[in-house]
Every structure is written in C-alpha cells, then in structure tokens.
C-alpha cells in the first residue's frame, strides 16, 4: 500500500477539495500548516516531496482492513460496527460527573479515573464553554479533565494537545477524540518514518473515540448566538430531528434542517461514525439521556472498563437488543452515503477497501 505523499498532495487531495476533518494532528509538525477558526491552511509550501503530514492525515489513502490488523491484530468480523467485545449502556456513578457530562458522563469518568490512578499522565481533550468555539486541552488531573466535559459540535483540532504533551515529555497520554482523530492517532502509531520527530516513540496508552456523524462549521456559533441573543447558553444538544439550546432564559429549539447548512463538507465523506479503531467508543443512546452507549473494542479498553466498574466509578447495563439494528442501520447508511458521495465526486476514495469488504457492506448487513 503506497502511503507516500507530501504537502502538495495534502493540499491537492485533502485541503483544496474541503476533505479536511480538522483532526489537528498535522498542525505543529511544521511551521507551514496552520489553523484558523477550524480551517487548516498551508501558509507556505515547504517544498518537500514526502511528509509526515500526509502520512498521519486520516483523509489520505487508508487501507481499512490493514488498520484492523495493526490495531487489533486480526481482521474484523463485523463489517458495520468493526471490532467490539461488548456493547453496553454505561454511566458515571458520581453525580457531579454525570451532571457535567452531555449524557452519562462516561468519558469524563473514565478519563478522570485513568488520570487519578496514574495510568496516564495526561489526557488530550477538547475544552470549551457551551455554544462557543472549542479548543484543544491537555488535562493532567481529574479536575482539569472534568472541566472538558460536554459534547462539542465543531471540529476542534484537539490533537494539537498531543504535540504539546510530546514536547513536554508527558507520557503516557490518553486521547479522547472524534473518529477522524482516532484514525489519525492510529496512523501515527502504525506508520513508519517519524524517526527523529518529537512524536516518535511517544506512548498513547488509551484512545477513547466518540460517536460522531457530523461536525459543524464554526459559523454555527454565530447562528447560536443569534438564536440565544443575550441569554447565557448552558447546554447545546441534538435530538435526531431537533437542535436544543438550553439557556438561562429557557429552552430554544430549531429543526435540525436549519443546521444542515453548517455541516463540515468533509463529514459528508466520513466512513467511521463510531470510532472503529479506538480502545473504547462512547456515544449517545438516543434513547435515554442519563446513559451512554459504550463499545468495548480492545483488550486495553476492556481492562479499563473492568477496573472502573470494580472501583465503582461507572455502572453498566446490557445494551437493549432491540436498539442494535437501529444503531447498525445508522452506521451502515452513513458508510453507504460516503461511498456514494466519493463516487459522485469522481475522486478516488481515501478508503482502500477490499472487494470482499465492499460487498459485505453493500450486499449484507449482518456479521
């Protein structure tokens, strides 16, 4: 599989056609890639033919099944949901963590737990007040992690905090990110060529991926401000068909169609809404606001969940079997839409899928 390419290719294949997911890993590799309002720009051509930026970008060609083998050591059995050992409902037990979280507070609880017991020394997170532009954060203790609780709806380049951790020699770290960010971290771990770079050899001990079907352009925040006026925004949420803005002046609603125009173009060609390469994936249940969906994917993830349960930090219950087809359909439809969009754009896909995999998706949807 040919992964060689450089900054010019990155500009041509990812930045110019608006396929950049805003993961943030290419930033801080060099002085030439910079970000403003979640838009990544190459401010000056570096002149190199090959580069780490191309290697780690989640939107440059990726062999999906090769990544399965690299991360999990085997091919996947489930073509839609990827590697998983268990799918559960879970929530934080501590009331202040549950309250701070978007839904069940599971991510905050697990990260605070891992930091608290020294399993990781830093966590790459995303901070930001509700309704405002989020920003990368590097938490070094449970309090700092808790301050990052709550969903963010635009594509913060939070992996910049991974660079910061590496420069400060803070390791091992945990990373919480969108599926694109998870993929970028896995490409960083599995791709050759980063010998002397500050990131080379640094340990990412834990990757928690979020469910994400789209991120919004930062223009969304001006839209929110317009809706909320002077009221303070306490929480932003989305139900399947409504935008919900909780303010100190009451709840504001709008049909989700009003927000569609803000969807980041790159998200229309995302193949992975459930962070298939993370150790754990966490999302909404779209069923019960007090709980999260928790997908346990790797041995590492399984060990953390077991320890957290034993410590009483989280509680779990079985995923309702009748909800599983709903989840599968949503994910499969996302993948199929992506394959169609890429075919329509006429660009060769950044996804390198075997014929068997492609058939499995388009022909069957059961493992």
């Amino acid at each position, binding site marked *: 599989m040919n992964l060689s390419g450089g900054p010019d290719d990155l500009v041509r294949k990812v930045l110019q056609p608006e396929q950049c997911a805003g993961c943030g890993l290419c930033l801080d590799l060099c002085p030439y890639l*910079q970000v403003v309002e979640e838009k990544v720009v190459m401010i000056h051509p570096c002149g190199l033919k090959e580069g780490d930026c191309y290697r780690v970008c989640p939107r440059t060609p990726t062999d999906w099944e090769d990544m399965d083998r690299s991360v999990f050591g085997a091919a996947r059995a489930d073509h839609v949901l990827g590697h998983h050992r268990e799918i559960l409902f879970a929530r934080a037990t501590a009331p202040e963590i549950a309250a701070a979280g978007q839904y069940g507070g599971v991510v905050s609880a697990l990260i605070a737990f891992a930091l608290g017991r020294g399993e990781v020394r830093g966590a790459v997170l995303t901070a930001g007040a509700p309704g405002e532009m989020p920003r990368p954060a590097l938490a070094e203790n449970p309090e700092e992690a808790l301050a990052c609780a709550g969903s963010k709806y635009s594509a913060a380049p939070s992996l910049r905090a991974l660079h910061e951790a590496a420069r400060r020699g803070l390791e091992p770290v945990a990373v919480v990110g969108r599926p694109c960010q998870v993929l970028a971290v896995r490409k960083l771990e599995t791709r050759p060529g980063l010998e*002397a770079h500050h990131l080379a050899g640094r340990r990412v001990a834990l990757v928690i991926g979020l469910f994400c079907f789209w991120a919004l352009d930062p223009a969304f925040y001006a839209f929110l401000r317009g809706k909320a006026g002077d009221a303070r925004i306490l929480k932003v949420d989305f139900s399947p068909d409504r935008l919900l803005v909780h303010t100190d002046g009451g709840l504001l609603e709008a049909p989700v169609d009003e927000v569609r125009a803000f969807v980041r173009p790159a998200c229309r060609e995302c193949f992975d809404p459930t962070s298939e390469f993370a150790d754990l994936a966490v999302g909404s249940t779209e069923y019960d606001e007090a709980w999260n969906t928790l997908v346990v994917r790797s041995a590492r993830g399984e060990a953390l969940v077991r320890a957290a349960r034993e410590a009483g930090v989280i509680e779990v219950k079985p995923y309702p079997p009748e909800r599983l087809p709903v989840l599968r359909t949503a994910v499969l439809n996302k993948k199929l839409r992506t394959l169609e969009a890429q075919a329509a754009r006429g660009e060769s896909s950044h996804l390198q899928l075997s014929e068997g995999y492609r058939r499995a998706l388009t022909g069957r949807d059961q493992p």
Partner: protein
Amino acid sequence: MSILGVRLDEPGRSVLLTGNEAVARGALEAGIGYASSYPGSPSAEVLGVLAELAGERGFYAEWSVNEKVALEGAAAASFAGLRAICVMKADGLNVALDTLTALSESGTKAGLVVVVSDDPGGHSSVKEEDSRYLGKVAHLVILEPADPQEARDMTVAAFGLSEQLRAPVMLRCVTRVCHAGGNVVLGALPPGPAGRPHFGRQERYITFVAFHGLQEQRLAQAKAMGENWPFNAYLGPPEPEILVITAGPGFLYAREAVEVLGLGDRVGILKLGMSWPLPEKFLLRHLKSASKVLFVEEVEPFHEENVGYLVACHLEEVLPLALYGKKSRHVAGPQGPGLGEIDVDAVVRALAALAGVPHETRSSDYGREARELVKKMPERELGFCAGCPHRASFWALKTAIALDGREAVVLGDIGCYTLGLTRSGYFLMQTVHAMGSGVGIADGLGKLGRFGFDQPVIALVGDSTFYHAAVPALINARYNPSRFLLVVMDNRTTAMTGHQPHPGLGVTALGEKVPALSVEEVAGALGIPVTVHDPYDVRGTVEVAYRLLRQDGVRILVLRRECALVAARREGKPRVYVDPERCVGDACGCHRFCSRVFGCPASIWDAARGRAKVDEAVCNGCGVCATLCPQGAIVVEGVG
C-alpha cells in the same frame, strides 16, 4: 571625512570631506540662518551635519515632515532676510515642485539654495530621475558641482547668485559627488550668527502669471554672468578635434579618460558648472573650433538636447560639427545609453571610438583562471537586516493573508519596508510608487466593492512616510468612504536614509525634546480605529492581523518595534544560538525553515553538522527565530 573638518575654523586648510559635508561647509561659510530637509539618499547627510553644528554656529536646522513643507520653511526664512538652504533628493523635488515653481515666480529675498541630489543608477532610489529638467521647468539657475571642492565653492557662490537674482538657485548633485570624498580647501566662517529676521509690511512675494516675464529676465541675467563664471571652464588645446561638453563628475571621468588614452592634444574638455541657463557665447566659441562634440553627463541627455538646440540655431557658425553622446549611443553604461550611471570606462570607450584609438587596459583574458575555478558566483540580493522587525511583520502578514484565503492585495511604497517586494519580504508587496502611494492606492481599491471587488486590501507604510504623505489619503478614505487595512510599520526611525528622527519620536534634528506625535493620535483625530502590536510577537500579530482583515471600513494596525540596528547599538545584543542537541536538522520536517524560508541572514545552515546555526557575526539578537523554531531549539541568552 567627518564633522571635524566641517566645523574647522581654519580658512585655507585642506581637509577631506564628502560632497554632502562640503555643501554643509559651504552653507556655514555663507552664513545661513535656516536649514531644512526631508531625509533622502544621497543627500541625507547634509542636514545631519548642519543640525550637529547649528547650536554652536547659531542657526536653525530641522528635519521637516516632507520636502514641500521643508521648502516653504526655507522660503519663509529667505523672505525674512535669512539665508536658507533646503536639501532633498530628486524624488523629493517632485514633492516640493509646486512650491518651487511658485517661488521661482514670486521671487525671494535672502539667498535660498535648493540642493537636489540625483541618484544615477538608483543605488538608493527606485528611479534615477534627472532633476535638471524640472529645474528648467521652474526657470531656475542650475549649478552642477563636479567634486567636493566645487560642492563647497558653488554652495557659497549660489547664495550670492540667489540674492542677485532674487530667486532660488538649484544646486544639482549626484551620488558620486554627495558620497564621494575629496580634499577641500576651507574658506572663512562668518564671525557671528545671521542677523535679526524681518518681513516688512510692504514686502510681497506673489506668484502671478504676469511675473513670468521676470523669470525670463532673471535667466538672461544669469546667462550673462555665466559667460565669465569660473565654474564654466575649458581645459585643452585651442583647436580640439573633439570637444567634450560635460558637467558634474563627468568632468573628472573625462579628464582621466583623456589621460588614459593619451589624447591630451586632440581632446578639449568644456566643463559647465552652470548647467542652466547655458552660457551660449562661451559654448559657441568652443563649438566653432571643434568638429566633433561628445556629451558626457548623467542621467539624461540634458546638455545634449539644449546644446543641440543651440547648435541648430547657429548652424552656419559652427558647421561642420557632429554631435555624439547618448543619442549616438557612444556614451553608455552596461545597460545602454541614458540608463544607469557613467564612469571613466564609459568615457574611455566613447572617446576611443571617436578618436579611433585602442583602449584595453588589461588583457581581455584577465580572470580566466579564476572563472574556471569558480564557475558560478551567487548574486547578493538586498534584504532586511538581521533582526529587522519588518521581517517578522511580513511573515506574520503573509501568514494572516494565507489564513484569510481571499487573495488580499498588498500595496506599499518607499522605505526599508520596500524590500518587502523581495524574497526577504516573501514577495508580499505588489505595488511601489511614491511616498505614501500605497495608502492612496488602497483607498482607491477599497471603493471597488460596489463592482464586486471582494479581495481584502492592505496598505503598508512606514512611520516616517506616514507623517510625510499618508494623512491626505486617510482623510480621503474617510470622506470618500473606503475599506482597507493600513499597516504602519513603525520601527521608530527613518531607517533607510540613516536613522533620522521624525514627528513620532519626540526629538528634533537639534536634539530638543518635543511632544511626540503618534499614529494613534492622528488616526484618532480622523476617527480611524487603531490597534498596536509588537511584530516580534509573530503569533499574536497573525491573530490581530487576521481579525482586522475580516473587518470593514478603514482600520490601522501599528506594528511597533525599534529598528534592530538602533537597538543593537544602544543596548548590546543578547546572544542567540542553536542548541545542536535540540535541532534535529533535516529530520525536523520544517525543511530548514529558519535559514531557507524565514530567511534571516544570520540563520545559516551548518552543512558539516547537518544543523541550523546562528552566524554571530551577523545576528542582532532579536530572538524571533527562537519563537518560530518548531523544535524550540534556538536559545536566547541575556545581554552581553
């Protein structure tokens, strides 16, 4: 060459002075009361020297905001009975011309000498204008000194001439006089300062078309004087075969060329010290005796055209006669006739061709061995000095413009920041015209939104240029509403011409402390919002510039940080070096950002070690590279 020679009170003593110092000396000996100037190469040093001596000699000297205002101040002194000198470069004459042409018509009282310095070859100018044409348009007497001695002598004579004619006299110097050094025999300094000024109630200095006739009378008067003027001289045989007509340092080149070629018995040299009006009788006398005339002057064929006209009006007297010079392509520098400066070699070539003699001074083979050893010799591009805040500003602006992504247009003008059009400024600047033109052009572009023009507009101007020329454009931008970002690159000095002060600094040419003006104050009065930032904080500057680019209307960003050369001289420099352990060389992935892209001349590449390096012989200690190194490998230590 130094001020010691200029102030020496020993008439008859020979000292080494530059042409500029000699002009200053001449002004001292003439007993000036008033001196004004706007810094312009190659004559900036004249007022610098005068200002240093003003206190002890009892006269007034100032750096004015621009040449027009400078000339008006000098004119005032003249009206009030004080001898006055006003100094500018050719481009500055363009600024002062409205006033100068008017003064020529209104007349003046005490001697008013206007020193205009041209820059053939544009060593420090964007044009090589020949200001003699404008002197002619202004109906002024134009004097051209050939060397520092004549620069002193003619300056003294010019004051007397100006008083006889009751009009300004133009002293036209070129770089090879201004910046040349030579022995100058000093004259006597006046015993005391100038007398008490007075502008009588009955005096009038009115510019009125009816006085055009007076201008012509003055020129006729000067022409008569020129027939017997010692600076108009002839050197050579009574009946030369070739007559060289020359002025300025061309005289020295011609004299040396005649020696080199051994043509002393065949070539005569007629030197014009008064280039306008022409001493016609003197000229005709010598034109009759020669059969070939070679004009040696720079930059344009001013004498060639005027004397050519004279010849045409006296054909029967002077024929047979053939005229050679630029039109015949005989006198030419490497770029061609009428382009660039001339030198001894140009005159040697021309004379040798006319006289039919060979002229090689050394074997044409000379240098072959060296060229075989060193096949390619890199050129030296001009660029910002090490530590220059403009480099940081241009990198920050380039970044902000790229992030903005709407193809911003960048307009500029004259100053050190003009180098922003070169590699040193990342080729950012797209227009360069006259002082303050960038603001005026931005003002125009900023009104084209009504036609769908949606590119952001950025004008760059320096602090000195801001006061010189930017204000009218800003007023216009408010009155005829426009939309652009003006970036004032405030390095706290007038750098390119030698670090002269300006209104923003709170100190005058005489060293007096005065209330400093500021861009914020001027802009505030015009209702234009101002943001100030330190360009050495590149990341912060990027953010501010990006934010301002997205705004409407006219807004100003002042990037304020002292010129690195001034700071280094005053404070001593922090030591900046690359930690060879932290620099990872080509493995960084930055592709040698510091030396290859950011481009500070002190950032070099140590090929032997494969690491970046700071050249301590060049570095001025600003530390900006340290903030930009992706590995944080550059260390800035304390002063000393």
